[in-house]
């Protein structure tokens, strides 16, 4: 039905979804994605932007190789070394923060080498805690630490800043920028927040409502992660004037 393969670490990410259908609770097939093509250069950060329910998480699952039930084609960068931040933290409740991270480490990586990462995400004081003892913001940070601890060639982030308070979200954004700069990793970020996307990404992909496809694509001027408020606002204005339906709120949630 579809063929998926991995390329060398430097290959681009290519996702082509001719069709993706879910079977609804009533037993009807609902097509949520149709004729979607997405190509992301190696080591760049792409942002998928679209209203909630349009199929962003579905695309991420397909990109992660977790959902083989689609018609299309998938080419993943790297040797399959994948880091994922799911929409929910998905930590193991019966393992401490440290163990949750330790469990995903590749053989050549030791936990002690992660000090920087742990510091950056402010997890030092929480390593012996269990996930049930953490706030949602902290749990998200653990999930991000885990995704980076893998030393991924390919990183997928599903709305990592949603439902966090403003200050925490801002810090996480900066941390993410630092992390993607420190390590060369092809990243696909899902968000429904335009400013998040502009701050973090090299390339924006705008999704339509069901069945989803890409209605517009925009390459942002480098360097990513160093855009100031004025630049971000300027780009946002550009998006609103260029992306059909965006300003009218059709793509807003």
């Amino acid at each position, binding site marked *: 039905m579809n063929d998926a393969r991995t390329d060398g670490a430097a290959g681009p990410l290519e996702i082509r979804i001719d069709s993706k259908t879910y079977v609804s609770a009533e037993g009807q097939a609902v097509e949520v994605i149709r004729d979607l093509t997405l190509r992301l250069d190696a080591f760049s950060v792409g942002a998928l932007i679209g209203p909630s329910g349009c199929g962003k998480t579905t695309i991420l*699952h397909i990109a*992660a*190789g*977790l959902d083989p039930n689609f018609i299309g084609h998938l080419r993943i960068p790297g040797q*399959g070394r*994948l*880091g*994922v931040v*799911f929409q*929910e933290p*998905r930590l*193991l*409740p*019966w*393992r401490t923060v440290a163990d949750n991270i330790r*469990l*995903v480490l590749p053989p050549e990586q030791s936990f002690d080498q992660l000090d920087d990462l742990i510091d950056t995400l402010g997890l030092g004081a929480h390593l012996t805690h*269990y*996930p*049930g*003892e953490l706030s949602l913001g902290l749990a998200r940070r653990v999930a991000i630490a*885990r995704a980076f601890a*893998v030393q991924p060639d390919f990183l997928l982030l599903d709305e990592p800043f949603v439902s966090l308070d403003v200050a925490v979200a801002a810090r996480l954004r900066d941390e993410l920028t630092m992390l993607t700069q420190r390590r060369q990793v092809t990243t696909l970020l899902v968000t429904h927040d335009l400013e998040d996307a502009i701050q973090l990404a090299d390339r924006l992909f705008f999704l339509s409502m069901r069945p989803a496809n890409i209605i517009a694509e925009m390459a942002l001027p480098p360097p990513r992660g160093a855009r100031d408020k004025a630049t971000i606002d300027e780009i946002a204005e550009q998006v609103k004037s260029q992306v059909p339906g965006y300003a009218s709120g059709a793509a807003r949630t």
Partner: protein
Amino acid sequence: MAKVLSLAALLGLWTLVAWLTQSPLLPSPMRVGEAILVDMQSGELPFQMACTLARVVAAFVIAFTLGVAAGYAMGRWRSVDRYADPWLVVLLNLPALVIIIFAYIWIGLNETAAIVAVALNKLPNVIVVTREGARSLDPNLDEMARAFRFSWQSKLRNVIMPQLAPYLAAVSRSGLAIIWKIVLVVELLGRPNGVGFVLGSSFSLFDMTRILSYAISFVALMLAIETFVVQPLERRTNRWRRRAA
């Protein structure tokens, strides 16, 4: 504290009734205690208890291993469940006594038959509970483990077992209780030793002192295992839950 008081009250009641009736059919706690001491010293009681305990352990290990494997497969894969479920229903509804008699007749009056009979009696319950546990496994964590390329050993240890643990603990508890009771019946019907055998022969002699001393000793042993082995294990697997509360 309440436990101790209630046990003391039971002992007091027993002493009182025994003293009132003065019948050989209800020996006093003192006499039963003496009998226990005597049989302890002669080595008779420890030997018979060890025979029974060995059967309990063997049957438990077999029922548990097979039951967890089968229950997991049935909970995880619908097709397995569809084919295996009718067998399970049959096994669930076969009376313990019927299974024991079949085992003794088909396999012979030997140790294998005894243990198979007990294990088969416990098996369906282990399967049902494990299947329930396997059905409730969190698909999100399953995906997480796949995305992060957990080895199957790591997945079993870190993702699946902790979720099944409460079910397995429940099954061990009820399992121990059911199994030792069935072992006594199996011994009564076809074994030349074990607590069940002693109870059977004492019954034909109406030797109530002996019956009570063996029964009480074995119940005490099972309670000790429950308290000092099963419960601490359960507490350990639930440590993260209490911390998280």
